[in-house]
């Protein structure tokens, strides 16, 4: 028999997963809307991503005649990976039954799995652009991944655990301490977030200019429901990354273990943080200029070094 606590845990796990899937396009819409405002445009409105998704789901899928099973399966794998990642991260509460299933290293692995499949699918058709996009994606991500791991290690050293719920617990629900090492890790994380989510200094999510695009080049061959799933998965990925950022650097408000009463407050806190984070992301994108692809290694190298510096500072100062 399940106790009520377990039942509640499962209930809220399902609730968090549904919330994330439904909210992710809204976050993308909000970021795009803020960007439009900052560029003195009216913008398409907050609900535009939903409209795009509906339109895409109602179309008939077109496939290249030489597309293999891998190409067909990839959108579903991608969506599944991102959804799983979002279920692992403690977004509204710490004590959810899914989160002990995987620690931060496995989380990085889930993101890597999605990346491998999308890159393979991009090369599957055999067009030049797909291959180009896949290679560039690999160039960016093989530099971003170690930086992300280093950021996680800094947080793990502070909280003595690689489990995200434990990290959140140590940072948010104990005595407030200023961690200089987390300041470095935070900067590094922002750089990784920009690079991994195809944001402006590294890639432009709204471009269709062939020579500069990375993410768009990879999904060029997808249409209809497959494209919808890929787009939805990118929204989910952005949501997951921002949630990781919140969990590591602004965890105040996430409900504690056994304290289900704090959930309404946690959801309100989450909304406020997401609105702020989305606006900050749009502002950052408006301020930065797209850099040459060969500058990207330097940019991501900075992230890695900042994260390493964070680790060193932690060892020196013990904080």
């Amino acid at each position, binding site marked *: 028999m399940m106790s009520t606590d377990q039942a509640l845990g499962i209930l809220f796990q399902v609730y968090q997963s549904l919330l994330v899937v439904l909210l992710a396009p809204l976050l993308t819409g909000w970021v795009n809307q803020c960007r439009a405002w900052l560029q003195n445009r009216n913008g398409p409105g907050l609900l535009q991503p939903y409209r795009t998704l509906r339109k895409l789901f109602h179309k008939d899928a077109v496939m290249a005649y030489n597309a293999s099973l891998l190409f067909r399966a990839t959108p579903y794998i991608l969506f599944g990976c991102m959804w799983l990642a979002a279920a692992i991260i403690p977004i509204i509460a710490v004590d959810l039954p899914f989160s002990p299933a995987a620690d931060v290293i496995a989380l990085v692995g889930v993101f890597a799995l999605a990346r491998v499949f999308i890159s393979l699918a991009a090369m599957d058709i055999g067009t030049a652009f797909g291959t180009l996009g896949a290679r560039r994606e690999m160039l960016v991500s093989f530099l971003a991944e170690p930086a992300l791991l280093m950021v996680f290690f800094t947080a793990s050293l502070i909280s003595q655990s690689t489990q995200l719920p434990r990290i959140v617990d140590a940072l948010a629900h104990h005595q407030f301490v200023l961690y*200089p090492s987390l300041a*470095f890790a935070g900067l590094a994380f922002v750089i990784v977030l920009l690079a991994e989510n195809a944001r402006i200094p590294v890639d432009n999510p709204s471009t269709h200019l062939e020579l500069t695009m990375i993410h768009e080049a990879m999904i060029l061959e997808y249409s209809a429901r497959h494209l919808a799933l890929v787009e939805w998965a990118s929204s989910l990925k952005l949501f997951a990354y921002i949630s990781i950022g919140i969990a590591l650097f602004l965890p105040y408000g996430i409900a504690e273990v056994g304290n289900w009463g704090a959930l309404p407050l946690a959801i309100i806190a989450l909304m406020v943080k997401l609105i702020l984070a989305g606006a900050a992301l749009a502002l950052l994108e408006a301020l930065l200029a797209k850099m040459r692809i060969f500058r990207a290694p330097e940019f991501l190298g900075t992230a890695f*070094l*900042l994260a390493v510096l964070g680790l060193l*500072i932690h060892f020196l100062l013990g904080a």
Partner: protein
Amino acid sequence: MTMTYTIQIINLLASMLLLIAFAMLTQRRILSLINLFAWQGLVLSLSTFVVAYSTDQRHLYYSAGLTLLLKVLVLPWLLHRLIRKLNVKWDVETLINIPTTMLVGIVLVIFAFNLAAPISQLSESITRGLIGIALASVLLSLLMMLTRRKAVPQVVGFLAMENGLFFAATSATHGMPLVVELGIALDVLVATFIFGIFFFQIRETFDSLDISHMEKLKDD
């Protein structure tokens, strides 16, 4: 209780000092380099102020004020004026391979932290862990002086090095006597003036601020 919070704030400011030292190492534009130097001065002044507050030492307030006046306002203003007059405001320096420089920087930081560990055990002050950070930022500024080829960034490196030393003095030993601090402050100011005159001389002789011209001293 308040004691621990002030230590945390000083630690945070120390990390920012190191971060700015790294940013200066990788900065290509002279103008942003000078702005970063001003920010470093501000961080230094704030940390001196916090040390003064936590240890209740009068003369450290003065030295915080002096730092603010000199390193955030006067020296950056002087440097801004200098690069405007020399017309090198938008100069972009071709550096030798920034990622390599950063890697060397990381190695220097590890070296400095290890070197400072036994020294800080001798100290009894509350903020002894900071000697490592101060030493690291001194070494990073030195690295910056070594890797730059133009004269102005080298001088900024020199001034940043002095920032690191000053931070070591305030954080580890809670400040030097006011007379010494005044003397150093004046020295830095005068040095900047003299450097300014040197810049003009160098440019007049070699038609450029690239100091690699100075390696050849023979007439031919």
